[in-house]
């Protein structure tokens, strides 16, 4: 970017950016540049995934088949999920981790910078392979992102491409996770004790453990799919003595921790933003850390609630139901602590705070529908209906995605040295708030009325709410372009950001100039009272 005038915009003696585009981006080992790459990649994937959802909602805007064939519709639902989960949400969080964790713990860079480069540059190849299947004879994978056999195995060559793409994404995530663990455990500046670390860093440390524990399980599951399809094994093939239900167990043993991989960093981000704009330390810091840890632990023993209808013994259903409902306790601790942080604070509603509060309110709705789905007798009614779709979009869009947008608004001044236009930021927020609820709230009603998910056509009785949901989706598709415009405008003509652009912000990332120089904390910072946001603090 600024490489042609690299000499002109030195902010700092250590600001030696590599000359030349390839040296700067392809061979980079700098945590900030890699973080930027991850975020740009994730943003591209958001737009691709959102375009797919527009195809889906266009077809569903009215009953009957109008625009696409059912088989293509199924490819869209499958790829929309894979792209959004593995291409958008996860890389966006890894990008934020790359940018912020070294800054938050006073480290000069990530612990393993070359591996960091590698773990990013695998991703574009993985997704080229996955999306390339759309242009092949036989089309892309169409059996749903959960890849249940035997349906998923009925695809053509796309099965192999999908499996190898997932292997590559898994390798990338695992390397990213190892890097984050090594950085946090080994590179904290003196004085940044574990229980003084910012919550974003804490939540990522726990997320990274989840990643290295479950991504290989997914790799194992899809490898078994591959050998079943191409090498004549019968792991999941009933005709050969295998058991398709076993695939669901293995998949969701990965899948449920994966759900928390996509939400724990969001908890961390919101726990950074709310104290800043409430001008109070986070209420119950240690309780928040332990809540994240216990959610992570519980995620390993609840997986079968995704598959209550497979015909499990009663004892199994009861165990998984109660274990699932147990998760509401640490999650409730988090929600109440955010509310208590705001209680009697001097709150101001800058754009990042709006997104964070939007997160708390709407994520709670997703949590409530989650409790409803956890009840075995009710779940038999809800299973594979639009109610499930509404539930996981409330936790992933208004949960994970809202927190990512909040984080970008919050740390943007630190990254670029420019403020954003508050008016347009608020327009962006309220526009999204209206249309996201228009999209997903009616889906609760559709599901309760019995509309199944992953279906291109439906009974005319469902027509009205589907149309409203589609209008919401079209409104939502405006938001990524709005976001590009807002940030491009800020980069060009935004007000110059001070070192601490938010009045109540604490933490080491606000101790370096804005924009953060290419190299920071080459000498570990000396921690003074009041510098850290969390731990035993009074400010």
């Amino acid at each position, binding site marked *: 970017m600024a490489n042609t005038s690299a000499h002109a915009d030195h902010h700092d003696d250590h600001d030696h950016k590599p000359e030349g585009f390839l040296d700067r981006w392809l061979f980079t080992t700098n945590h900030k540049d890699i973080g930027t790459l991850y975020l740009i990649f994730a943003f591209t994937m958001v737009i691709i995934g959102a375009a797919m959802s527009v195809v889906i909602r266009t077809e569903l805007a009215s009953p009957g088949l109008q625009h696409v064939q059912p088989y293509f519709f199924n490819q869209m639902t499958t790829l929309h999920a894979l792209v959004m989960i593995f291409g958008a949400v996860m890389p966006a969080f890894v990008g934020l981790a790359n940018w912020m964790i070294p800054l938050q713990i006073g480290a000069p860079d990530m612990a393993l910078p070359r591996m960091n480069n590698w773990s990013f540059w695998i991703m574009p190849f993985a997704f080229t392979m996955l999306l390339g299947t759309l242009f092949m004879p036989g089309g892309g994978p169409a059996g749903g992102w959960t890849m249940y056999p035997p349906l998923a195995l009925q695809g053509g060559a796309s099965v192999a491409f999908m499996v190898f793409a997932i292997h590559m994404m898994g390798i990338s995530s695992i390397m990213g996770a190892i890097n984050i663990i090594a950085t946090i455990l080994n590179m904290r500046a003196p004085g940044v004790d574990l229980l003084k670390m910012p919550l974003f860093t804490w939540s990522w440390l726990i997320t990274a453990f989840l990643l290295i524990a479950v*991504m*290989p399980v997914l790799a194992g599951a899809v490898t078994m799919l591959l050998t079943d399809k191409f090498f004549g094994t019968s792991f999941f093939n009933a*005709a050969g003595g295998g058991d398709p239900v*076993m695939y669901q167990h293995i998949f969701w043993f990965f899948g449920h921790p994966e759900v928390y991989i996509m939400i724990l960093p969001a908890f961390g981000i919101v726990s950074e933003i709310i104290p800043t704009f409430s001008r109070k330390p986070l209420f119950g810091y240690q309780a928040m850390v332990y809540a994240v840890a216990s959610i992570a632990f519980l995620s390993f023993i609840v997986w079968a609630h995704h598959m209550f209808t497979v*015909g499990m013994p009663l004892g199994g259903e009861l165990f998984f139901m109660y274990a699932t409902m147990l998760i509401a306790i640490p999650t409730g601790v988090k929600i109440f602590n955010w509310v208590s942080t705001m209680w009697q604070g001097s709150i101001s509603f800058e754009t990042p705070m709006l997104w964070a509060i939007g997160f708390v309110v709407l994520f709670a709705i997703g949590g409530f529908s989650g409790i409803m789905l956890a009840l075995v007798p009710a779940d038999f009614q809800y299973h594979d209906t639009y109610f499930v779709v509404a539930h996981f979009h409330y936790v992933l869009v208004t949960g994970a995605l809202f927190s990512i947008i909040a984080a970008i608004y919050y740390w943007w001044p630190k990254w670029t040295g420019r403020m954003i236009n508050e008016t347009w930021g608020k327009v962006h927020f309220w526009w999204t708030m209206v249309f996201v609820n228009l999209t997903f709230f009616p889906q609760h009603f559709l599901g309760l009325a019995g509309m199944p998910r992953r279906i291109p056509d439906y009974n005319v009785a469902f027509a009205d709410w589907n149309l409203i949901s589609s209008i919401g989706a079209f409104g939502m598709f405006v938001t990524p372009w709005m976001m590009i415009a807002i940030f491009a405008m800020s980069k060009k003509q935004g007000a110059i950001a001070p070192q601490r652009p938010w009045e109540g912000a604490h933490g080491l990332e606000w101790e370096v100039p804005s924009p953060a120089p290419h190299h920071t904390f080459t000498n570990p910072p000396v921690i003074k009272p009041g510098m850290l946001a969390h731990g035993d603090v009074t400010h």
Partner: protein
Amino acid sequence: MSATGEQKKNGRVVKIALIVCVASFLFGFRVMPPIYRIACEHIFGIKYENKVADGAKVAAFKEDDARLVEVQFVGNVNSALNWTFAPEVFSVKVHPGVLTEAWFDAANLAPDAIVGNAVPSIAPNRASLYFNKTECFCFTEQTLKAGESRRMPVRFIVDPKLPADIQQLTLSYTFYTNEIATKRLAAQPAAVGPNS
């Protein structure tokens, strides 16, 4: 820039993390399938293996004249297989501990020889541990030439320890195409089939 001590510490984290990764890969790939089997058989009481009952165990069963259990039969064919398949009688009443025989009929409607496998299932699940088959057409591949039909037996004996509240159990079979064996059969020069 950094001391070698730090590199050593990073190396240790990487080593431990990679061990965790390999362990969890093997867990998904090599450990979960057997655990699933053990959980089915020993925790939830669902028989997983489809094999000949242990002769010594079956021989020790004492006939329970006082009790009659109804055994129902169901025959299904997977939609990809162009066969018919049905039991000759739909239910029998048996005394636990008595060896009983039932017959199923299958016919190949397709123009080619097809190898099929029958996958059995017992309902209710918890009765499956008490249902013993001493002989079954589901233990082997069944090859039917075009238009051929076959009577196939199953011999079973219900364990007298079957929980008292179970008065009725259902033995159902689903026939699937054994694609690999069918392909192998088609590749052979059209000589005599293995079952003729």
